[in-house]
């Protein structure tokens, strides 16, 4: 029986299921308990599971992420909520220098089965310090898995495989998606290794993830009305990248636009393009193109914020340039 729920509710259901199924699971982070979660994801869980397992932390990203690592090493299955990716910079050291390295550096003796969730992205007029998209940075690092659920289904079901993974998994939830609703079937388990084709097409491949997925789908819809067939690939997993899916779609469409809310330089989009060039150069009919955020701190004013982020119009323009057509 399918039902309509929000991305937020889907995340909460996933958490609740994990807490019910495994007594080793706990959720810790700033305001996850009494406040109910900054984005209300954990609302109600404190009452059900108590303050030990729905554990409010001080504003100490470095310590509570590091403690999550220790707890994972010590036999728990912690889900650490870092309120937003912006604050995760305060926890970069434990994530990059400890969580990601421990298994390998210890000669395979220790694993860190830790899940870190955080909100990411712009689009809500919260200005420069609260509008970052750093998931591409994290995808640079071997030893961790980077997930970007863009659909209600992934929001609901990505947590279980993430918790089953013996190594650290970071989940980036786009802040603009929490209120999004969609139909969800009873049981639709997902993997955390592959990209998903959201729309098939033959003229151009639009490759994206996270909050940009819906802008990209909107662009594809408008392109279709003009007779341009655009395929849309939701990467879902930013590390390891599903290179096979990227290459296959490139081969199919021969033209690619990568849409990424991160800044262009050194972005995830850059990595996707590099793989296309490495693995599918001879399949290309045009240089890979991308639509990223403008290289400027994200401004507060609405019209300016909209102007710096990827938008359907920019995606369409990029496609037109590739095809040599104009609107």
């Amino acid at each position, binding site marked *: 029986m399918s039902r309509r729920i929000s991305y937020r509710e889907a995340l909460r259901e996933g958490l609740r299921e994990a807490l019910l199924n495994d007594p080793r699971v706990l959720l810790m982070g700033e305001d996850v308990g009494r406040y109910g979660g900054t984005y209300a994801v954990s609302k109600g869980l404190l009452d059900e599971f108590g303050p030990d397992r729905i554990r409010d932390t001080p504003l100490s990203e470095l310590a509570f992420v590091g403690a999550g690592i220790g707890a994972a090493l010590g036999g728990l299955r912690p889900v650490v909520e870092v309120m937003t990716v912006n604050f995760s910079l305060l926890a970069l050291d434990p994530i990059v220098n400890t969580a990601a390295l421990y298994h390998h550096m210890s000669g395979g003796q220790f694993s860190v089965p830790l899940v870190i969730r955080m909100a990411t992205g712009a689009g809500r007029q919260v200005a420069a310090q609260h509008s970052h998209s750093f998931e591409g940075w994290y995808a640079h690092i071997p030893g961790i898995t980077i997930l970007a659920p863009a659909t209600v289904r992934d929001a609901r079901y990505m947590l279980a495989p993430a918790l089953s993974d013996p190594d650290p998994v970071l989940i980036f939830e786009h802040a603009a998606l929490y209120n999004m609703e969609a139909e969800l079937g009873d049981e639709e388990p997902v993997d955390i290794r592959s990209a998903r084709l959201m729309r098939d097409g033959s003229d151009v491949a639009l490759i994206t993830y996270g909050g940009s997925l819906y802008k990209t789908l909107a662009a594809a819809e408008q392109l279709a009305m003009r007779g341009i067939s655009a395929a849309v690939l939701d990467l879902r997993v930013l590390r390891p990248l599903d290179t096979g899916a990227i290459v296959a779609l490139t081969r199919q469409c*021969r033209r690619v636009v990568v849409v990424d809310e991160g800044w262009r330089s050194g972005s995830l989009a850059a990595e996707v393009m590099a793989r296309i060039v490495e693995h599918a*150069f*001879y*399949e*290309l*009919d*045009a240089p890979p193109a991308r639509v990223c955020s403008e290289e400027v701190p994200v401004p507060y004013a609405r019209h300016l914020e909209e102007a710096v982020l990827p938008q359907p119009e920019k995606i369409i323009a990029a496609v037109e*340039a*590739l*095809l*040599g057509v104009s609107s």
Partner: protein
Amino acid sequence: MIEFRLPSLGADMDEGTLLEWKVQPGDILSKGQIVAIVDTSKAAVDIESWHEGEVARLLVQPGQLMPVGTVMALLLEPGETAADAERYQPDARLPASADAASAGPMQSGPVMAERRAVSPVARRRAGELGIDLQGVSGSGPNGVVTLQDVERAAGAAAPKDRPDGMRHAIAAAMSRSKREIPHYYLAEPIPMARALDWLAQENAARPVTERLLPAVLLLKAVALALRRYPEFNGTFIDGSFHPASRVNPGVAISLRQGGLIAPALFDADRRHLPELMRDLSDLVKRVRAGSLRSSELSESTITVTQLGDQGVESVFGVIYPPQVALVGFGRVTERPWVEGGKIVVRSVLTASLAADHRVSDGHRGGLFLAALRDLMQQPEALDAAPSGETK
């Protein structure tokens, strides 16, 4: 220095892709030796050499697509050495008959010197197809050559798309035929009783594998009739008719995957029926297997098509240029037939002639069909070895 060039194996062949060399530098070629296997829009074909000499250089790589007339290899003439071959610059210009293949959109002067903007996939595909990118116009932004442009330019060339390619090739040849050749059509019923009776008798004495089919009688009759009416046996090239010295009817054979091909039965007029039967069976087998010799595709002098098996009563064909005639046979049917003032039932087959009015007239065509009809009434004579009569 002998230039071994890709021969044109038919009006619909503009190019071919080298599949395999059958010779190596240093080999001494004899006439008729298979030099290479080339994929055409119709089939993979063995290319024979008409020269003798030592193979000095192979100039084309397997996989390369080349226009008809391309110098594929250099053969040494007596007294020449490999060093001569190294120095030799083949004449890049193509023979006149193949110049259409190289015609492409003209580029303005200065652009010619620049590197063409070709997409990677288009460049790769062009390499696979052997397409010269200079001749391909680009439809992408700023004139970039795209995959689609290359495939359009390649037309029927892609070997893996043979049915498609063949359809294009047939389309091109038949359009040309209807555009250029003023066809006229004649038909004549041929009583088959005698021929069929004679065949039944003849076959009774033969093992199953060596039995003769009516088609062999018809082919032989056509061949013999052509000796009397040579204006139907030959080619029309550059405004004039060239009668053929041999009678090599091309037998239209349909392919399972679609399309058809009409390889030649050489010297059909000079063969005994059993021999002709063997040749025909062999030809059908090789057509299905895709292993035809180049001469079989290039040297037919008329086409014979028989659609009787499909159940049609008569067929009026389109001439395969540059040939000048096509003979069609329908199915053998029992029909009311007036003989000596009475209506009797007879086995009858309708023979038709499509012929080129530039070369012959209906009067001669009628005589040709009448001769064919009469020849079929003396089946025992068809098996006879040909007399010394030529023309």
